Structures are given as structure tokens and as C-alpha cells.
């Protein structure tokens, strides 16, 4: 493994993770096309990608900007409903061939994301002047308002929801969306705005004295996050082919928070991995029947007790760091349950290697 990784070092940077993206895509694509994994597991893989997108969007607010949002399902539902209404009602006549249906699907996703970010702007402007926990409560209330609103809007099918949405969220769509979302978030975080977000997280007052318009920065992060969550919702609707208002209830928002914090808050890669692990876990445990939810919750408690930083800590994939290697300080700072376990094992191995040598010296 280390040998292969070394092949991709150039000028002190590692391009290994860049290469792994297309490799992973090809592996998954082959597995899907050749039916190596059945539709059941295929759905779960797609679902974990979509959950990952929304969890990453949540990380932008909770992890990078240091605010707390508990209403991500609200943005998801706007994206889901708007894009589903687009493909089902507006663009239906245009979606004749394979190419045009994907083209209009992408347009619908963007419209859904734009609608979500517009609503994000509307609630962000008044509420982000507040500090601390107030935002959490406002977003909580907002997602409930959205849910009730879908119940009374006739084109959204009221309480019955929308069904027979075209199934367009295929593996390439979801995979490419995940990659694009990650690159957008990486570039945003490293831009002037992203650094301002981190300043707001670390110390809002200090940030303000440095000349950052903190409210504007928070609104910006909020709007971008809403856009991405909206796109995630659109993908979700076109994978499930059926949505109703109760699909996007408070539990969905809480799930997203769970994916983020179990994976490791502050890192987009950990949010994605957390969403993957915790989308798979209930399905892997399915054979246990009713006990699976007990074990699922128990594993969460254990993870949180052991390490508030989550399973994967604050580590990022190499391409999220522009290929820069992690130095020893970052490694210590970012460690999660897994990496500290590896570090412990490596330490023991070194100790074991050293011990006989030291013994010889004594003789």
C-alpha cells in the first residue's frame, strides 16, 4: 500500500487520492453494471452518497462556521419537491431521450438548489444576526413550517406527496455530484470567505475586529449550505421516486446531524464517511430484527463516549488538502477513533521492535 502511494508523490505532494476517485468510480460502475451487487445494496450505496452530500452541507454551517443548524431536512425537502415538480410537471414533455432527460434533470436539480438557497437567504438574514443556540431553534421551527406548507400546496400533492417521479439518480449522477460538491466545498473553505467562516467559528468578536462582516459571512455559508442540501434533496427524490411531507421530518434533520458528528465534525470527508457508515449500519444489522436499533444506538453512544471527535476525526482526503501531506501536528489535532487506534497499534509495534534490541544491549 505504502509502495503504491509513493508512486504518486510529486514535488512533495501526493496525488494518490486524485487517482483513487476515477478508480473508485470504475470499480463501483463495474459492480453495478455486472450485477455483482444486487439492487438492495446498490440503493444503499446511492443513499449513503446522497446522505453524504447533505451531511457535508451541514458541516459547512456546523463544522466550519461554528453555528448550529437543526433543519437541514427543510432545505432538502425544498430541493426535493421543487426539482421533482420540475421533472414531473414542467419538463415532462422535453424528457424524451436519455440525454435530454439527464440534461433537464441537472437543470431541475439546480433549480431545486436555487429555491432552497433562496429560502435559506430569507430565513438567514434575520436569524443569523443572532448568536448561539437561537439559530438552532429557528432552523428547527423553519423545517417544520416547510413540512406543513407542503401539506397544503396542491401541486405538491398535499399529504399524499408526489409519486412516480422519474428514477434518474443513477450511480454516475450521484457519484459526480458528490465529487463536485466536495470540490466546491474545498475551494470555498480555502477562499477568503471560507477563512472568514473559520474566523467566525474560532472567535466571532476577534473576526469582527479584523474587519469581517460576520453576519454577511454567516448568511453566505448558510445560503451555500442550503443550495447543496437542496441538490441532495433533489437527488433523493429522484432515487426514491416517491416523497411526501413526512419523509423530511425532524428525524431526517437529526439523522444528518448524527452522520456529521459520528463521522467527525469539521471535516467534509468525515461527514461523507460518517453518512456512509451510518447508512450501512442499520442495513447490515437487519438480520437482528428489532435489536438492530438498540445496537445502532448503543454504537453511537460508545463512539461519542470514546471520542467526541467522531470515528474519522478531522482528517480530510488528500485531494481535499490539495495533495499537501498532513504534518505531525495536524495528525495529532485531527485524530478520530480510527486514526488514534492505528497510532496506538503503530506505537506498540515500534515498542515491540525496540524492546529486543534494547535487551541485547544490556547483555
Amino acid at each position, binding site marked *: 500500500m505504502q509502495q503504491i502511494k509513493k508512486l504518486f508523490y510529486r514535488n512533495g505532494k501526493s496525488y494518490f487520492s486524485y487517482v483513487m476517485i476515477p478508480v473508485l468510480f470504475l470499480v463501483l460502475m463495474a459492480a453495478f453494471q455486472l450485477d455483482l451487487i444486487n439492487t438492495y445494496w446498490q440503493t444503499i450505496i446511492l443513499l449513503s452518497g446522497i446522505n453524504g452530500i447533505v451531511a457535508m452541507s451541514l458541516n459547512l454551517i456546523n463544522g466550519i462556521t461554528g453555528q448550529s443548524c437543526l433543519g437541514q431536512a427543510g432545505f432538502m425537502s425544498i430541493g426535493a419537491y421543487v426539482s421533482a415538480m420540475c421533472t414531473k410537471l414542467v419538463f415532462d414533455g422535453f424528457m424524451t431521450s436519455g440525454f435530454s432527460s439527464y440534461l433537464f434533470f441537472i437543470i431541475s436539480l439546480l433549480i431545486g438548489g436555487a429555491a432552497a438557497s433562496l429560502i435559506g437567504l430569507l430565513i438567514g438574514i434575520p436569524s443569523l444576526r443572532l448568536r448561539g443556540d437561537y439559530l438552532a431553534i429557528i432552523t428547527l421551527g423553519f423545517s417544520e413550517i416547510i413540512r406543513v406548507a407542503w401539506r397544503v400546496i396542491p401541486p405538491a400533492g398535499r399529504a399524499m406527496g408526489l409519486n412516480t417521479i422519474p428514477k434518474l439518480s443513477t450511480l454516475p449522477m450521484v457519484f459526480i455530484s458528490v465529487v463536485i460538491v466536495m470540490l466546491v466545498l474545498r475551494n470555498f473553505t480555502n477562499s477568503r470567505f471560507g477563512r472568514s467562516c473559520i474566523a467566525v467559528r474560532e472567535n466571532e468578536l476577534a473576526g469582527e475586529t479584523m474587519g469581517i462582516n460576520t453576519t454577511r459571512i454567516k448568511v453566505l455559508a448558510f445560503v451555500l449550505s442550503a443550495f447543496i442540501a437542496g441538490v441532495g434533496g433533489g437527488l433523493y427524490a429522484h432515487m426514491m*421516486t416517491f416523497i411526501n411531507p413526512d419523509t423530511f421530518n425532524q428525524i431526517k434533520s437529526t439523522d444528518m446531524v448524527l452522520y456529521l458528528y459520528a463521522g467527525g465534525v469539521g471535516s467534509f470527508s468525515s461527514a461523507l464517511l460518517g453518512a456512509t457508515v451510518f447508512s450501512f449500519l442499520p442495513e447490515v444489522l437487519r438480520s437482528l430484527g428489532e435489536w438492530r436499533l438498540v445496537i445502532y444506538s448503543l454504537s453511537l453512544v460508545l463512539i461519542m463516549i470514546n471520542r467526541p471527535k467522531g470515528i474519522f476525526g478531522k482528517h480530510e482526503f488528500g485531494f481535499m488538502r490539495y495533495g499537501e501531506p498532513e504534518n505531525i501536528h495536524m495528525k495529532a489535532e485531527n485524530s478520530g477513533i480510527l486514526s488514534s487506534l492505528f497510532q496506538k497499534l503503530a506505537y506498540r509495534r515500534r515498542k515491540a521492535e525496540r524492546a529486543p534490541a534494547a535487551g541485547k544491549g544490556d547483555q
Partner: protein
Amino acid sequence: MKKFLALLLALAMVFSVTACGGGGGDDGEKVIKIGLCQPMTGSMAASGTYSKQGVDLAIQQINDAGGLDIGGEKYTVELVVQDNEGKTDVTINAFNKLIGDDKVTAIIGTNSSGTTKAAGPLATEAKVPVVATTATAADVTQVGGEYVFRSCWIDPYQGYLAAKMAYELLGLRKGAVLFNNADDYSTSIKDVFVESFEEMGGEVMTQAYAGADVKDFKAQLTAIDEFDGEFIFIEAQAAEIPLPIQQIKELGMDEMLLGAASWDSELLPELAGADNIEGSYFISTFSPQSQDPLAVEYVAAFQEAYDNLPNNQSTMSYNAMMIIADALERCGTLDDPEALRDAIAATDIDLPSGHLVFDENRDPQVTGNVLTYENGTPVFIQTIS
């Protein structure tokens, strides 16, 4: 590290125990797998448990009788249960698991319209027949596609039966309707009731409505009182019925009270007051008091197995299993999903809740039961169709 290992080992043990439980017991016998997808956890968990009791009883009866005779060979039935937590996305996973992983021949479930609509198209695509238990919304089978059936009646049909009960059986000619306009279930039944009742020659003098979470119905009830009709048809979810009933009696109104299947609730006499509902009539899919010989036999078997009376959910699940078993025996092969679908569509059997045939929309044409409350317990009057 040791703790971690211990945890892993404990998990592995749990897995192996369940694996043994699932794998043992087939000594070269031919087994046919039937899936059950119901909420075994979550807010509707009770419903899932009732459903499983019904299906378990049906399977026990089938296997005790020597199994299913499909194309001259005997098969024992094995049930595979997947929990859907009452959520749409989990239902889709559970259906995928049943179809792709467990490779079941047919699926029973779910108990709600939303989840069945979400997962139905999947089953149709994979050509696995589904018999839903209590998904009553009118469009469930249309959305689900041609492999989705159900063992329960549909909402509009309930409205029709209630109208028939009022007009033909009770001889009522004019009355009022009280319903919840924020609720799909309530509104759709009310619409059909009014339409059918007027078609038969009766007169609905006023239709009063209340929104969700209304606690005071006095304004609506005073308005109804002015018309001086013979009856009030109260159509709402089970939890919303007791308050208007109490207030009707408080106002001293003497109209006869009528209701639909939501009145068939164990809690109603307690919540609304047994005196207040004395002499009111309602319809239900199934009554444990039914004198039908099949029903008597079924109720006795159910009581013996679980020590309580079967409710609607258990009975519909029992029916679903019996419909599938009957269709499998008639179709005579396991390799042809289309033949199995056609066999289910051609179902023509007697069940504890009455005779059942499917119409062209794969909805059952079943008989209903008219019941009345006497001293706080529902008493069976007769069947109606």
C-alpha cells in the same frame, strides 16, 4: 483495545446465534419464502406486531396441513420479516432486501398507504406480487403497478357501505355529516358517503367540518341541530371521534350517530362514554362476533394462539397470506411471476371477513359488517356488501 475486541466478539456471537436460528430446520424439505414488511419498531410498532400474529397463524395452519401443494410438490412456507419502521425510505430498503437478497416469492405489507405507494413500483419492476394489509387510500394499487394488491377495502368503498347501511338497513332518509377537512382519509370517505347517500334517494342536509386539532365542536353541532335530521355521520380518525360525541350528548341532541371503520376502536367506549354511543351504528371490515363459520373458527384459533381477539390488522394480514397461498396452489408453478400475478387477480375465496374477489384495479370487493354499540361493546348485526 481489549474492550474493543470484547465488543466485536460479542457482536459476532449475536450474529452467529441469529444465523443458526435462521438456517436450521430444513431437512431437504422444499421451502417457499414469503416476505412480511411491516413497522416492527417506531410509532406504529403495535400494528406490525398485530400483522405478524395474523400471518404467523396463517402460516402455522398451512404448514400443519402439510404445506402448499404447488405443481404436485409439497412446500412448507417460511416467513421473512423486514422492519420498515413506518418510514418510506426504510420501506424501500426493506423491499429491496426482500426482493434482491431474501428472494421471496411474494410480499405481505405494508400497513400504510404512503409506504406502499413508495415501494410498490419496485415490486412491480421486479415482478414480485405484493398484498398490502391496510393501505386503504384509493390510488395505492394504481401507483404501485400491476403487481400490487391489497386485502383491505379502499376508503371510498367504506363511504359507500356506510351510506348503504344508513339508507337500506336503518331506513334513514335525512341527516348531517361531520368531518375533518384537514384529513385526507376523512374527506375522501365523506365525499363518497354524501354522493352515494343522495344517489340512493336520501338527503344530506348539511356538511359541517372541523380542521385538525379542533377541541370544541359546539358551533358546528348547533348548526347541525337546526336542521333536525335523523342522524349524524361522524367521519374522522379514531382519536378525533370521542370529543364531538360527548358534545352532542351535552347539547342534548338525539340524532342517531353513525360512523365508519374508525369507530371500531377498543378505546372509544371509554373515551366517549359508553352511554353516549349506546345505539350508534358503524361499519367495519371484520367483527370477531361475526357468526360466519369461517370467522368463528378463525377467532377461536387466534384466541388459542395469542389469548386475545383478532383485530382488523391481524385479520387483513391473515387474509393476505391466505390469498397468496391460494393463488400459489392454483398457479401451480414458482417460476412464472406473471402466472402468479394473474392467479392472485383471479382470487375467489371465502375468508374470515367474508367473500373476496379482486376488481380490475386489484382492489378487493369485500363484504362489510354492520355493528352497533350495546353497553359499551360492539355487537355484530349483519354483513353488508
